């Protein structure tokens, strides 16, 4: 069970002076249960890439399969496969439109043809995800919520579809640190319950902490694909792609340059502390 891209190329505005190939010959496979992060500089093709995973864009050449089924055919099984993949866009709160929060969250499940009892249950579950009390908020307008709450309602609108694969394009953009932590905790929770998560992010720290695997996009090409440790060890490649290593790792590297025997591949703050402590103690022993 996986999402597989085979030599996918996408060209926008073919046949005009504005023609632009946003992604070139991208191939990869995302297995069920993984937490994959896609990183890349602005304009490197991340959004274009993820929109292929649920058929919002179809490849100019190449194929996309979900659980072995090509999602760009006219067959019914193709539609069913597309519906396994949920997509949360950047600034999803701008897609809210209903008069009440409950109705907005119900929009997706209803479109998927669920009956009213099922829809109601999905709405309750999704509101629970959004940390909004059903009795208190269900009949309120989504436009009276705070920015962070609106974002959670919008994400809940996708969660209510119970996607097996969930794509999130910069879900924390423009949120304060607390709002951001809440959302990431929720996403981690979903992952622990078996949802495959595909996260597009600019924040190396978040990515290093959460992802099992990282894809690096650079000028429309998949430049690297590996575990966080493998990726963040390739500083030159990241630099060329216009990216940084997480601040913790960067600090350790500085220390190492100044002669401390620390491990500069560590991505986690606790491990970093251990490594520094060890290095300092080691120095003491030597003296």
């Amino acid at each position, binding site marked *: 069970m996986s999402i597989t891209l085979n030599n996918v190329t996408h060209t926008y505005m073919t046949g005009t*002076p504005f023609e632009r190939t946003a992604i070139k010959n991208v191939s990869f496979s995302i297995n069920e249960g993984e937490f994959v992060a896609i990183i890349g500089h602005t304009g490197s093709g991340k959004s274009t890439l993820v*929109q292929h995973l649920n058929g919002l864009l179809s490849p100019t050449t190449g194929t996309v399969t979900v659980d072995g089924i090509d999602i760009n055919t006219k067959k019914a099984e193709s539609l069913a496969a597309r519906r396994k993949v949920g*997509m949360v*866009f950047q600034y999803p709160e701008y*897609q809210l*439109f209903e008069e009440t929060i409950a109705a907005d969250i119900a*929009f997706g499940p209803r*479109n998927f043809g669920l009956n009213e009892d099922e829809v109601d249950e999905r709405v309750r579950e999704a509101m629970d995800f959004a940390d909004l009390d059903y009795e208190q908020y269900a009949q309120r307008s989504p436009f009276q919520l705070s920015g962070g709450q609106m974002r959670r309602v919008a994400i809940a609108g*996708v969660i209510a579809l119970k996607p097996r694969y969930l794509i999130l394009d910069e879900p924390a953009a423009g949120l304060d640190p607390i709002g951001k932590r809440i959302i990431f905790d929720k996403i981690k929770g979903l992952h622990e319950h078996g949802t495959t998560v595909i996260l597009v992010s600019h924040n190396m720290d978040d990515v290093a902490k959460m992802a099992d695997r990282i894809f690096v996009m650079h000028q429309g090409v998949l430049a690297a694909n590996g575990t966080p440790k493998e990726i963040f060890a390739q500083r030159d490649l990241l630099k060329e792609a216009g990216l940084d290593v997480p601040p913790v790792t960067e600090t350790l590297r500085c220390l190492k340059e100044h002669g401390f025997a620390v491990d500069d591949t560590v991505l986690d703050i606790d491990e970093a502390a251990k490594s520094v402590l060890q290095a300092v103690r080691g120095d003491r022993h030597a003296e």
Partner: protein
Amino acid sequence: MLNDITLGQYIPSNSLIHRLDPRTKIIGLLLYISGIFIVESYLAYAFLGAFGITVVRLSEVPIKMILRSLKPLWFIVLFTALIHLFVTPGTPIMTVGSFTMTWEGLDQGLLMGIRLLLLMSFATLLTYTTSPIALTDAIERLLKPLSRFGVPAHELAMMMTIALRFIPTLIDETDRIMKAQRSRGADFSSGSLLRRVRCLIPLLVPLFISAFRRADELAVAMEARCYRGGDHRTRMHTLAYTSLDRNAYIAVFVLLAIIIAIRIGKTCYGM
């Protein structure tokens, strides 16, 4: 699919036509359009067409782009041509049911079709070769003499600038919201008419909200920079005619003279 909208699109380049003063292009377009409506003979159309093709070549805009802008118009052109074909009285060609095609109708229909196509291609050529800012600057300058009679030239131009500036933004936004709702199972392209109209609500509500939000933000931003309307404002780029513009005016007037001559020749001497 929304990428097909070419309205108000500008194709940057440095061709002769791009370098013309925007006022020249607007006045030239108006004169050309009046030319289109004076003309009644194929000979004169040959001149208009040759002029049009020359201008397109000079503008370095790919022919494909011009044809693309005509796409939404095919239906109207066909419809107009058919109406003329059937309702113009004259020598019959053949009869379909209670309608009769006539030679005169064929003539009229063809001319009308050519007219519309020339009109549309020239008008899009203006936006293809003139940046929106230059276009509104020119309109402001051209309307200026009318401000004595109370026409708010600057305000009109500012409104146009803003509208043109936001067309691409709104198109992008529409595209994004449509995709977001499609990911939630919305279907914008099938079902009965009523169903399709209902499907527009999830698209239009967010679009309006965001348009109002943007308008608000823009107003605040303009106020924060002390914008106070047209009086006493100076500009960074002042419009100035060059010899290029003189030549363009000469070319347009020569074309008009030829067309008028043909027309006079036709009516007075029955040529």
